[in-house]
């Protein structure tokens, strides 16, 4: 579909939007109830990450660091800093789980995580996530695999109604909730792994960041393997299906690249109808929202159909947004991805680049409206366009965790928001042009 440039060829990132693999790991652990993510690295690694997610979600974030310093980095193979961290965390907050994830610093040292973990008797999951490899999506996916690999107990039974849902990292908490409710309305029980929908959904909690305050429970993760189906959502988490199937080969794996827009949601519904054996009986609200999405598509097609977009996001997120926009004729002039991914080739765009915002800035003649993280706001200002905020990080807005773009319902709201933004932009342009004409006529 798209022409994809997989490598930038530049020796640096200028105005980067890429986020690191350990950051993705942190976020995944925050989707486990009463978990303390423990980043194995210098104190700054955790601090940068904590500050970012705190500001993004407007929520206190539970995260600790093994606080590796220059001396420890040389003398310690990881045993001291991890064991000491686990002890200190355990004494203070008694988590259900400690989620150890590495960084470039500790990977360069070459610490033997598996060996260290074997010496620890508190519940712990470890994952190798050097930050000089991969990115947010892979950190999330690797951690999800680690959770299942290290916690889930093998099983040979199947609960025909049970579905394990594995969302990609760019789904907002409310999107995971909407998806679970949607699937459950077809008669299934859903366990999402990780599950940010009850931890980072902007709810007022009692305790402040001492631990993650919601998410899938450790007990639930242990018992995942009796699910009839594992549904992976997003190319980055597709391998998680296989990980779970290792615990029980009878589990069936169904993968969706996204469930955005009419066709994306239709595909999910078709599968749910078939799998649930409901035939054509479906929850009335599903039918209603499909009609609303159809109407939204018509109401927004004229505006979006004449708009050329720059999308800036993680690969799976790019694929979702592009699908929605393409259904109403939006032209994806340029999609800028944080990292490479096989999904990039499937995006219907004039050009897909693994790159940075400098690349986007250079090509500003190609697009009208930008959808991306808060850094694209300044970009938009520089190139006299408008930006709609999506993706990590977003320090400019509140309520991000409750923004839903998927399924029929979210798809309708997404189109409305984009169409309205595009129209507002065009009106400002028309206003500006008319002011110019006025000045000319007066002169």
């Amino acid at each position, binding site marked *: 579909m798209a022409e994809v440039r997989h490598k930038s060829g530049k020796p640096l990132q200028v105005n980067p939007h890429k986020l690191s693999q350990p950051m993705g790991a942190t976020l995944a652990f925050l989707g486990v109830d009463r978990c303390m993510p423990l980043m194995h690295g210098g104190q700054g690694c955790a601090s940068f990450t904590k500050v*970012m997610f705190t500001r993004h979600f407007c929520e206190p974030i539970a995260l600790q660091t093994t606080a590796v310093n220059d001396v420890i980095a040389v003398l310690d193979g990881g045993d001291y800093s991890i064991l000491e961290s686990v002890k200190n965390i355990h004494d203070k907050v008694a988590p259900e789980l400690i989620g150890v994830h590495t960084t470039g610093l500790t990977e360069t040292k070459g610490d033997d995580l598996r060996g260290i973990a074997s010496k620890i008797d508190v519940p712990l999951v470890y994952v190798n996530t050097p930050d000089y490899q991969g990115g947010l999506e892979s950190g999330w996916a690797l951690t999800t695999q680690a959770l299942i690999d290290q916690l889930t107990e093998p099983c040979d039974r199947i609960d025909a109604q049970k579905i394990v849902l594995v969302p990609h990292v760019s789904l907002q908490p409310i999107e995971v909730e909407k998806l679970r409710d949607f699937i459950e309305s077809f008669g299934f029980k859903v366990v999402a792994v990780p599950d940010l929908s009850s931890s980072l959904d902007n709810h007022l909690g009692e305790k402040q960041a001492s631990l993650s305050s919601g998410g899938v429970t450790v007990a639930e993760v242990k018992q995942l393997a009796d699910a009839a189906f594992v549904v992976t959502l997003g190319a980055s988490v597709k391998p998680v299906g296989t990980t779970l199937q290792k615990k029980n080969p009878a589990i069936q794996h169904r993968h969706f690249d996204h469930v955005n827009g009419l066709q994306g949601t239709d595909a999910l519904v078709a599968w749910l109808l078939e799998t649930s054996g409901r035939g054509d009986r479906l929850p009335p609200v599903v039918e209603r929202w499909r009609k609303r999405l159809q109407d939204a598509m018509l109401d927004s097609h004229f505006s979006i159909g004449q708009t050329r977009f720059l999308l800036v996001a993680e690969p799976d997120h790019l694929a979702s947004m592009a699908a929605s926009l393409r259904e109403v004729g939006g032209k994806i002039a340029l999609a800028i991805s944080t990292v490479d991914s096989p999904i990039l080739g499937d995006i219907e765009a004039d050009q897909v680049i693994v790159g940075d915002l400098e690349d986007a800035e250079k090509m500003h003649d190609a697009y009208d409206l930008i959808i991306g993280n808060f850094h694209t706001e300044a970009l938009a200002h520089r190139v006299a366009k408008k930006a709609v905020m999506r993706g990590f990080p977003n320090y400019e807005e509140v309520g991000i965790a409750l923004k839903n773009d998927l399924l029929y319902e979210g798809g309708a709201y997404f189109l409305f928001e984009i169409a309205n933004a595009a129209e507002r932009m065009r009106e400002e342009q028309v206003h500006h042009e008319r002011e110019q004409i006025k000045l000319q006529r007066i002169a």
Partner: protein
Amino acid sequence: MSSKPKIKELLAESACEHNKGKKGSCNAPTPGATTGGCALDGAQIALFPFADAAHLIHGPMSCVGGAWETRLTPTSWSGRDLTQTGFATDISNNDVIFSGEKKLAAAIDHIVTNYAPEAVFVYSTCVPAMTGDDIDAVCKQRSEKHGIPCVPVHAPGFVGAKNLGSRIAGEAVLKHLIGTKEPEETTPFDINLIGEHNNTGELWRYRHLLEELGIRVLSTFSGDGRIASIRTAHRAKLNVIVCAKSLVSMTRKMQEQYGIPWISCSFYGKTDTSKSILAIAEALGDADLIERTRALIAREEARLEEKLVPYREIFAGKKAVLNTGGNKAWSIASALQDLGIEVVATSVRKSTEADKAKAREYLGENAILMTSPATQQAKVIDDTGAHLLLAGGRSLYTAIKKRIAFTDVNQEKKKSYGGYDGLLVLAEDLKNSLQNPVFELVDRKAPWQK
């Protein structure tokens, strides 16, 4: 991994070159119980306000990912604002295995070609520090090639906390920039502002007053700063440290090397702003200047007082608990007192002995100096009948539980509370907090709760 031997060399080198200011690993952070940024963070905070210089992080995305374009240190530099432009080498597997020096050199070339900065700061990070990239050599070579300073900043995160990074940044500037250029002219009233980052434009709240008095800000480290100016900083008559203990070592060295005396100032609140402006005039030692300064202070205070009238009634009898770190423990307290708010307690958890003494001096003998504010502040609010809690976002819930007003002192750093005019902004924010019903409402019992 083959890089291991190199690490030891580097650390040995790093120890003799940069570890002077550091208290050593006996003071290492506690694993699993540490908060706060690292040396890299501190170095960035100290140097990023130079908007005419590029700031290149030689490291992976964790070190920069969420941390560019977030610092609200505005500039009047007319070129592209490089403070708001993120540069990172984004080192990959390959760079770890085979060295990232070539990539770093190419990155500097890219920046110089495309952004024409006045200087390039190159920040080392933990991974290249361990793998042993010779950043000094790359910088030296690129400086020569491009004819602009490329300044290595050796503050990889694992060497320590923010303060250390700030100090390392100061030393890098001292070594590579200060004294490398002569000013076009000098005046008897040339000063440097050290540690003023112009956060949210705070410098702009008082610089015009100094200028009105004929005091010239020769250079700043580094708020609204210019590379060309900081290179001439050795010709100043006075160094003024603005709320930045960690930079005393820098001004001491400037005193040793260039004979520049220094004083420490705060520009929060009316009292301290007046005191500071006068202190600068006095340090410059010109009788006429001192007289003009007194007149200006009188004029500004009168103007301010008039504007504060509508707030006086709102704040009368109001008590505040202050939970914030370092010198803010007393500097913001002073501003609150200027507004007629009684500060009944302040946090001294991370304060130096000097800060503690200052806090006691400002707050009086009945005030509570909290050493463990997180656990203390709820009780302190009960005991003192405080109406207002000023603290970081986490303490919001204490305020709600106590149903008193809350103001986030770290309010995303969007507002400037410095100088005389900043006090008005603080007054407005505090008024809004005190009058906001949300703190009582949020704790309201749900209909299903008994």
